[in-house]
């Protein structure tokens, strides 16, 4: 009951705040949305506590019958286990804080914000639906709901062309992943005949050796399913090749970015991997791909993050990078570490975004870090919170990021495979870069000489309590979450904590061996993190001319990174331009000429036929009589020939 309330309260909030929002007015709509979110978070945390500490066992909360088609029956039900309760608790808490923060952030909107709050709540609901799904179709429902809401929210400022473009881009890039995900679901259904998790997972060992014959090659069924599901996850979680929408999604209001990056949407892919762990464990090839993509993304996004100038974009690429870590962990079989990082990341990434929002708010909507600087005294709370978020992100002991990132790197190292080591190398390099760009962000934003114009500087002020409150709450999470949850998620208590929600194969002992890593390896993230911060200090506080010189010296590299490895340009060339061409072709030739042409031609033919048909209608009786006689002769002839 608590659990169902936690899931459906945001929906109710969305409906009540969103639909009659204009009538209710802003305040009432905000109040309704926040109240329902608060209710949801209380219930969500309570449900989690019940499960973990009060021993309420795993189960399924049925809601309604959904689909009955022939033998295919589908229930609308909520999965009640550690993974879902953990996610629900995290999502509701973070979303609630973001709701509250939004009140302050959106205070200067010209139009009523009820729509915004409605969307936010709906977004939270979709994510909750996704994480509590007990079957793949329901998960897909939440998956698409999240996609829809992200579209609505990224394009919230629909009068900005760039926002609309970003929204469309997010939608379309996600479609690629979603197609694959849908195919994956279909493949699962074909293989198992059902889509609900418990039945699938029970049947997994029975189908291990199933093969697909395709193009003369045999593929193991689980590998195919695993890869398809992972491509879906790549789209949602913005892994390399399907990551291009994420930075553009910064066009939405900052709370939206926080919501997308921390609690909802992008974590869906990681969640999917964790949820499908009983199946993925039997698909080593797919896991290898997960590791590879995750590790690559991790490093790739970090390199780009180092040179971006838009404060939100830096954080966006850091998300991309951190998601890479999570996939890296999932790929080497450390799902627990993956989810652990997901949770800690949720706290510090939400914190970072909200801080960034606070800064932007303070700087009169300026997002370019080159035009900031020297404001740390004026925004002390934000400054402090930002520090904590950055340290957590950079993986410095004892902040949250340290525990989870450390675990991931250790797991990658311990997996022993080549791909695991590749992941470890990428992850370590990325850890260094992460710390560097976190420091860069901090120093460029808050320290040094003010680069903004006088007018802006005058207006720099600390944000109201509705904004700083959530910052402080999240700061606590960013500081403590790692230390607090470490034993439960991946440490000694993990078996008791997860209660079988995540599955590790018989030969998968990564978690047990986490403690066995050499001290050098274990200390590496912290060392690299501190090194990264140190370099950032040198570059942006001590010798501020150096970065510019470096950029000029290695201009091609700099441009390569600044332009995000030219992915957008590449896709423009490979996909967008040909798609435009094809669309134009279909439009002009296919649609205008053929599809329009056929009915138009038919219509013309019809009118023409009509003209011919009445031409004989001259009014002359003789012609009429002749027509009759000719007709008669025709009929008699038919008769005679038909005998």
């Amino acid at each position, binding site marked *: 009951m608590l659990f169902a309330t936690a899931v459906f309260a945001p929906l109710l909030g969305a409906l009540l705040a969103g639909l009659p929002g204009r009538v209710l007015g802003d305040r009432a709509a905000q109040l309704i949305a926040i109240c329902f979110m608060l209710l949801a978070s209380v219930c969500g945390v309570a449900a989690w506590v019940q499960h973990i500490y009060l021993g309420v066992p795993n189960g399924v909360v049925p809601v309604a019958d959904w689909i009955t088609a022939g033998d295919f029956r589908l229930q609308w039900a909520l999965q009640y286990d550690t993974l879902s309760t953990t996610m629900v608790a995290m999502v509701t808490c973070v979303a609630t804080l973001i709701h509250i923060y939004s009140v302050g952030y959106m205070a200067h909107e010209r139009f009523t914000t009820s729509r915004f709050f409605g969307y936010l709540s709906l977004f939270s609901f979709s994510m909750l639906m996704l994480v509590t799904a007990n079957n793949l179709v329901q998960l897909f429902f939440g998956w698409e709901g999240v996609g829809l809401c992200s579209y609505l929210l990224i394009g919230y400022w629909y009068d900005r062309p760039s926002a609309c473009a970003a929204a469309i881009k997010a939608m379309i890039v996600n479609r690629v992943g979603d197609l694959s995900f849908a195919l994956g679901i279909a493949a699962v259904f074909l293989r198992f005949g059902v889509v609900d998790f418990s039945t699938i997972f029970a049947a997994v060992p029975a189908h291990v050796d199933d093969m697909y014959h395709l193009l003369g090659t045999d593929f193991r069924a689980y590998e195919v399913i695993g890869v398809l599901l992972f491509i879906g996850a790549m789209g949602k979680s913005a892994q390399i090749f399907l990551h291009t929408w994420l930075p553009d999604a910064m066009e939405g209001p900052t709370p939206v970015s926080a919501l997308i990056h921390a609690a909802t949407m992008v974590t869906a892919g990681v969640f999917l991997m964790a949820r499908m762990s009983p199946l993925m464990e039997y698909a080593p090839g797919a896991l290898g791909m997960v590791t590879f993509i995750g590790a690559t993304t991790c490093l790739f996004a970090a390199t780009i993050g180092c040179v971006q100038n838009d404060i939100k974009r830096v954080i966006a690429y850091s998300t991309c990078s951190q998601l890479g870590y999570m996939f890296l962990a999932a790929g080497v079989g450390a799902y627990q570490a993956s989810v652990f990082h997901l949770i800690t990341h949720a706290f510090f990434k939400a914190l970072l975004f909200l801080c960034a929002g606070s800064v932007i708010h303070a700087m009169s909507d300026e997002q370019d870090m080159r035009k900031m600087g020297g404001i740390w005294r004026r925004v002390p709370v934000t400054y402090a919170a930002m520090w904590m978020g950055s340290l957590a992100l950079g993986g410095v002991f004892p902040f949250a990021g340290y525990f989870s990132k450390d675990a991931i790197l250790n797991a990658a190292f311990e997996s022993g495979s080549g791909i695991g080591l590749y992941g470890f190398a990428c992850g370590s390099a990325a850890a260094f870069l992460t710390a560097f760009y976190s420091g860069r962000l901090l120093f460029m934003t808050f320290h040094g000489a003010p680069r903004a114009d006088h007018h802006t500087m005058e207006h720099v002020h600390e944000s109201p309590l509705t904004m700083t409150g959530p910052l402080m709450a999240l700061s606590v999470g960013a500081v403590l979450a790692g230390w607090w949850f470490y034993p439960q998620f991946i440490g000694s208590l993990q078996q008791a904590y997860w209660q079988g929600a995540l599955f590790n194969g018989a030969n998968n002992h990564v978690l047990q061996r986490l403690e066995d890593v050499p001290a050098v390896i274990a200390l590496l993230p912290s060392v690299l993190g501190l090194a990264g911060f140190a370099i950032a200090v040198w570059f942006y506080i001590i010798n501020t001319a150096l970065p510019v010189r470096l950029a000029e010296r290695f201009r091609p590299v700099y441009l390569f990174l600044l332009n995000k490895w030219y992915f957008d340009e590449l896709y423009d060339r490979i996909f967008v331009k040909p798609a435009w061409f094809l669309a134009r072709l279909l439009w002009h030739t296919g649609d205008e000429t053929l599809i329009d042409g056929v009915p138009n031609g038919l219509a013309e033919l019809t009118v023409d036929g009509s003209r011919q048909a009445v031409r004989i209608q001259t009014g002359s009786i003789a012609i009429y009589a002749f027509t009759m006689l000719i007709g*008669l002769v025709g*009929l008699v002839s038919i*008769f005679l020939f038909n*005998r």
Partner: protein
Amino acid sequence: MMNWAAASPEIFLAVAGMAILLFGVLLKKENAALCTMLVLGAFAATFVMVMQTVPQTAYSSLFVTDAFASYAKLLILAGGALTMVLSLDYNERQGIGRFEFPVLMLFSTVGMMTMASAANLMTLYMGLELMSLSIYVLAAFAREELRSAEAGLKYFVLSALASGLLLYGISLTYGFAGTMDFAKLPDAVTGVDGVSTGLMVGIAFVIAGLAFKLSAVPFHMWTPDVYEGAPTPVTAFMSTAPKVAPFVVLLRVLIGPFGHVSVQWQPIIEVVSIASMLLGSFAAIGQTNIKRLMAYSSIGHMGYALVGLAPGTESGVRGVLIYLLTYVAMSAGAFACVIAMRRQGKSVERISDLAGLAKTDLPLASLLTLFMFSMAGVPPFAGFFGKLYVFLAAVQSGLWLLAIVGILTSVVACYYYIRIIKVMFFDAPAPAFDTRSASVSFVAIASGMFTLLFVLALGPFTGAAEAAARVLFG
């Protein structure tokens, strides 16, 4: 012993007609409205009498009363009565309000009822002539108008040709079989090996003669001119009851006496049906006069109804009977709307005169929309079910071509039906029409209610049609 009572409705109606004629002559004053009322009363009484007839054969098996005949007669009487009501107001305003008008309609109706009861080719022919002759006069009733006189003459001349064909066909049949009795013909037809050429040609001629009255292609040429020229109530009349009577007689002849050679006549009906559907839908597109448009629409509708005859099955006949029922209602209603098109005392007939009717007279526009949708075959209006049943019967018998052509031409026909709706609702309004009389509104609303609510009373009507159809196959 002769059973006179079998024809009592016809006899009553004829006697009433003569009495009203006498009354009209003697009364001398302007008495058209009164005579029309009397004729309507006679119709009502006849309606009741028809309902009470028992199935029997009479007059040396020239005449038969059965469920099929009763169904047809009731439909004919209803159609006649509806159009008679339409004439009340129109004739008076048009200055042709004379008492002979209803009397001629009455005699025409007697002829049609005779046709419906025909059990012999002779009865068929006599009924047909009585019906037609009255209509020639009615078509030319507005004798001061050139168009009307021309319509009457044209119909007369061409109809004479058609009658000649029919008679020739009958004589060929008689020459082959030695009888014109529907009950005895099947024996004669099946008596020989194979099929006699003479008989086949005879059937073809009979079909041609009746197809003329149905205005089925290629015997349709008179229809647009006559529909346009005749006074509108006469046009309405022509498109309702005088379509029903030849059709039921065609059903009776082809299913009854010639049912055994259905393989032979089936292609003819198919060709006529397809040609009618095609012409009815295509030729109407370019029309600007709504009466001409209705003429082509009527041609098309007869084509659809013939689809039900082609299979020669019970379900097909049932479909035709339902089709005719819905068609009569739609037609009467549509023509009521046409009669309501009157501006500054003058009748107008162009489609463009309907422009923006929805803004000046929404009820009329809505009713006409209803009829147009129904004629186009849009569910859930009555016209849809007529089409549904005939197409269903065709498909059940494997006559896919007919059904496909029917559906395609329905789509084409939609164009001109819906164009009228477009003109009424989206074009800049033309000046408003004159106030219409209660009688016209009555017919329009009554037909409209029928068309709209037919779906609710589908059961009883289908049941009646089914019972009527069963007679032919009994």
